[in-house]
């Protein structure tokens, strides 16, 4: 019984669960900012685990998968940060459960150039 393919399959299964949790989070969160959080963090981790599982199953595919994993790991948080700043600057409201808004206290000097 081979061990590597089964380990790869289990890691991929965990990754797909995280993708499902991220999608459910996007539907159920009460606010735009919460949806950005759920959509970015959960799907980045889910995709990382998924591709890692495929890489464990086929060890000869590993270099190309590592390039893909590093690319997703570095660009997903950047795009979510830019989107959240743009959403705050056009005035999307926070939900009532949120009590701290640090960007509003210092905005006017930050969002420029």
């Amino acid at each position, binding site marked *: 019984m*081979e061990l590597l*393919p*089964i380990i*790869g*399959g*289990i890691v*991929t*299964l965990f*990754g*797909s*669960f995280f*993708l*499902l949790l*991220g*999608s*459910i989070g*996007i*539907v159920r969160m009460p606010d*735009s900012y919460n*949806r*950005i959080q759920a*959509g*970015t963090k959960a*799907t*980045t981790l*889910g*995709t990382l685990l*998924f*591709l890692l*599982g*495929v890489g464990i*199953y*086929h060890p*000869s*595919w590993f270099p*190309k*998968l590592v*390039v*893909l994993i590093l*690319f*997703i790991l570095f*660009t*997903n948080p*950047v*795009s*979510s940060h*830019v*989107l959240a*700043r*743009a*959403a705050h*600057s*056009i005035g*999307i409201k926070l939900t009532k459960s949120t009590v701290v808004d640090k960007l509003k206290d210092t905005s006017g000097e930050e*969002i420029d150039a």
Partner: protein
Amino acid sequence: MADTLFLISGGIAILALFTAAVRFFLGPDVVDRVIAFDVLTIISISLIATIAHTEGRVIYLDVGIVYGLLSFLGVIIVAKYLERGL
């Protein structure tokens, strides 16, 4: 055994795809639709990896790299347009 695990993971990813599409149609703001689109493309990268595994060709992963690039650029361009106009 391991191949059925991969097929089950692909099926769960397709379920996640439909769940995120619900927010794409519902979302009252433009930001909700943009983030749903981003999630849809990232899930598609995992589905491309599943297809690459079942067909057995490594060259399909290049399509996944292009998808990652397009999703990143798309979100950044829409965010820049929202903040300041074209």
